[in-house]
């Protein structure tokens, strides 16, 4: 079929310049494909850029571990891949137990994860107090995974986008895709830059990496999933003397905390508010999380809070992402719905997506993330399921 005059053609078009889309763009460009990345605002300015920054394998469900371990290896190569380390610090991740009964599942998880080559050590009792004197009474023990760490989310996605561009990818920010269709041979897209003429694009492959907005594309191809928007609630203190040795989480969830090189403590937990498009932090949530955070880190009581923020992220009913080939449309690949846990995974997902495009398959098990796994659910779930 003949193309419209002025149509741009690519091997792969990517919808959404978060960390998944940007790292896929880089990986595909490196493999010699002609790639375009369309981001309606700025690369990494949504969930990829405003999240907590945890690079954490520990605590993940078993089905995510092969992907997580692959992704974790990418983080060690950031300087070679994107020219910066993204302030990635393999500080270790300490997953805390708030009561004795939480220690048993931490042991069980450590045994399971060992099968995937992940080492974590459960510490309790007197040794726990001796090693972590800066932790308050709110924690009685914890599991330490030294290969985990944290990074600066504001830097990593833009650097992947920059690296993709340097390898020849056509990275177009402030350029939303306004229509998408498959003409039986190829995908036909239109995109409308904030400034300039409407773009007509055809491509052989389409990667749907649009995060909380990915259902717009999935729905177009009859694969809408029951995903809803969530708004993580984040805050940061003024710089404090260094005292938080590891990135922290708790068994059962509720609060997570880390201290950056400059001394600021970055803390998250609970939800902000939003309308699916914009997010705001919630003072009530901040207050609630402060109480939990100070029980774990008493030194925070004397600190000043300087900033709060939120972002928009997609969450699925089973908290697993959607990753893999479309069931309705050839050469359409989805990767979205990371449910608040995508930062570690994303650079690995970028490689997986590149595998799928270049080989039609990947060695990393992703069956658990199939787009049609929610098919038995009533379709209305995606509109009715909302947090209050």
């Amino acid at each position, binding site marked *: 079929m003949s193309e419209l005059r002025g149509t741009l053609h690519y091997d792969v078009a990517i919808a959404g310049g978060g960390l998944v889309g940007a790292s896929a763009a880089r990986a595909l460009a490196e493999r010699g494909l002609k790639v375009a990345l369309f981001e309606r605002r*700025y690369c990494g*300015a949504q969930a990829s*850029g405003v999240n907590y920054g945890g690079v*954490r394998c520990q*605590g993940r469900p078993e089905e995510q571990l092969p992907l997580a371990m692959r992704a974790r290896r990418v983080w060690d190569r950031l300087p070679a891949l994107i020219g910066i380390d993204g302030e990635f610090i393999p500080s270790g991740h300490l*997953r805390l137990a708030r009561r004795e009964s939480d220690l048993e599942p931490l042991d069980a998880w450590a045994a399971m994860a060992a099968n995937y080559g992940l080492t974590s050590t459960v510490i309790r009792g007197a040794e726990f107090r001796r090693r972590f004197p800066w932790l308050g009474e709110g924690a009685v023990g914890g599991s330490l995974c030294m290969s985990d760490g944290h990074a600066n989310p*504001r*830097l990593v996605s*833009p650097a992947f986008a*920059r690296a993709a561009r340097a390898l020849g990818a056509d990275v177009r920010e402030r350029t939303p895709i306004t229509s998408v269709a498959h003409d039986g041979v190829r995908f036909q897209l239109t995109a409308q830059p904030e400034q300039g003429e409407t773009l007509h694009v055809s491509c052989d492959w389409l990667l749907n990496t649009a995060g909380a907005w990915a259902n717009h594309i999935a729905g177009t191809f009859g694969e809408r999933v029951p995903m809803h928007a*969530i708004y*993580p609630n984040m805050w940061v*203190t*003024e710089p404090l003397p260094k005292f938080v040795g590891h990135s922290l*989480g*708790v068994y*059962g*969830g*509720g*609060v*997570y905390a880390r201290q950056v090189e*400059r001394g600021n403590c970055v803390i*998250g*937990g*609970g*939800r902000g*508010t*939003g*309308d699916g498009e*914009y997010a*705001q*932090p*919630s*003072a*009530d*949530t*901040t*207050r*609630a*999380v*402060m*109480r*939990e955070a*100070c029980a774990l880190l008493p030194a*925070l*009581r*004397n*600190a*000043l*809070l*300087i*900033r*709060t*923020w939120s972002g928009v992220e997609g969450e699925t009913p089973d908290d697993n992402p959607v990753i893999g080939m479309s069931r309705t449309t050839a050469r359409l690949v989805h990767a979205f719905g990371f449910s*608040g*846990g995508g930062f570690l995974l994303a650079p690995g997902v970028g490689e997986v997506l590149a595998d799928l495009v270049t080989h039609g398959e990947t060695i990393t098990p992703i069956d658990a993330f199939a787009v049609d796994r929610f098919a038995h659910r009533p379709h209305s779930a995606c509109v009715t399921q909302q*947090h209050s």
Partner: protein
Amino acid sequence: MIERAGPPPARQGADFTDAVIVGAGPAGIRAAQTLVAAGLRPIVLDENPRWGGQIYRQPPAHAGFTRSKQTLYGFEAAKAEAVHNAMSSLLPHVDYRPETLVWACDPRRLHTMHEGRETPVPFSHLIIASGATDRVLPLPGWTLPGVYTLGGAQVALKAQGCAIGERVVFAGTGPLLYLVAYQYAKAGANVAAVLDTSAFAAQARATPRLLSQPSTFAKGVYYVGWLRAHGVRVEHGVTLDSIEGAEAGDDIDGAAGVRAIRWLRDGREHSLECSAVGLGYGLRPETQLADLAGCRFVFDELNRCWLPARDAAGRTSCSGIYLAGDGAGIAGADAAELAGRRAALALLEDLGVAAPSMPDMPDAASIERKLAGIRRFREGIEQAFALPEAPAARWPDDMLVCRCEEISARTLRECVRVDGVSEINRLKALTRVGMGRCQGRMCGEAACHVLAEASGQALAQVGRLRAQAPIKPIPIAPMLFDENVATIPEEARDE
């Protein structure tokens, strides 16, 4: 940002109690007076320990300060007296909460911090009279001990009765430059010079507009004349070059602090020894609360910044939320009194409550006429005391723009060059400029100038730093005492 439109809860009659005023300067006080006269009992939240705002700031109570209002406020003593007395007489009729920082805003609810307690304050109607802060533009040496903003220098004198240094230079531009210099010299401080970056010719050209407020104009002329008559060096049309001295910890003999200021005039270099510098380029409206409340912003050419959109009465894009005073755009204390009353009248009108008749207080239409007249004067002020053209062009690469995060002009320029950044929030995300304790309140404007210059855009094009709660840094401990802390829902317990 999210527009939080939608009608406020319907209430009728004079028992309405959910009207909240933020700020107890001239705008907030006149707004409160108007609401009380109509039978309302507003809550008045003020960050300061005593009412009066900045221009009519009162010294601490019970601290032994005995300077008269005439000494403190000069020509403005009678106005200060009137505003102070108005608030005194309102105290039984309002819920006045001094030393109360509003740190966040949800839809229809403020979050406040007072004496180590954290309290939410619901509102159905909100008048924001949040005032202004100094407009800070840096120059090399601006982080030295002994460099203050003009407003900070004035607060030190007015509230504390002390000067910022033994030998003080006031530099920058704007009416406050001369007023503070005059107040310092009058109080007996050693004012070495006033260095105005605006040309005298510009001030002469602005005279016709400035004469729309003849008495205010006369005062300005008087201050300059008084300073000259008392031997204070006054220079116009200077280009400030640098402040010299030693940072704390420098291995230079002598104490840390300012030693001298350097400037250019008519192509020649000048230098003057001094121990302190008061620096300022007019004022910057404090708009964070309006931003958090969801108000729509527009770029205002007169104020050279983004401001919440408002109509002539002070209504914002959010129903039930009103703006008054310098927080809505710099216009001075007289305009603030008028705008405070006008916003309160708008609130009453929207409530369906009749406007109260008050002696010496004009009606809505005549207030709006007077405010329009003051705007003409404001245009004259901006013409007379314009910001330096392209200030960032002079800033060397190694000058700190953001002192909290220690971000230099070089870092910002590199980011523009390497990443092609053209928008201020993006620059913030990638460089940390404006991410420290001040959250861009001090450095944001300078960062916008650097970005505009480095990316070849006009100031309006680089956007504005979005406000993020808290409006000022707040201690965490008070948050722990709230009895009504929510629990984190099970489905939101991420790790």
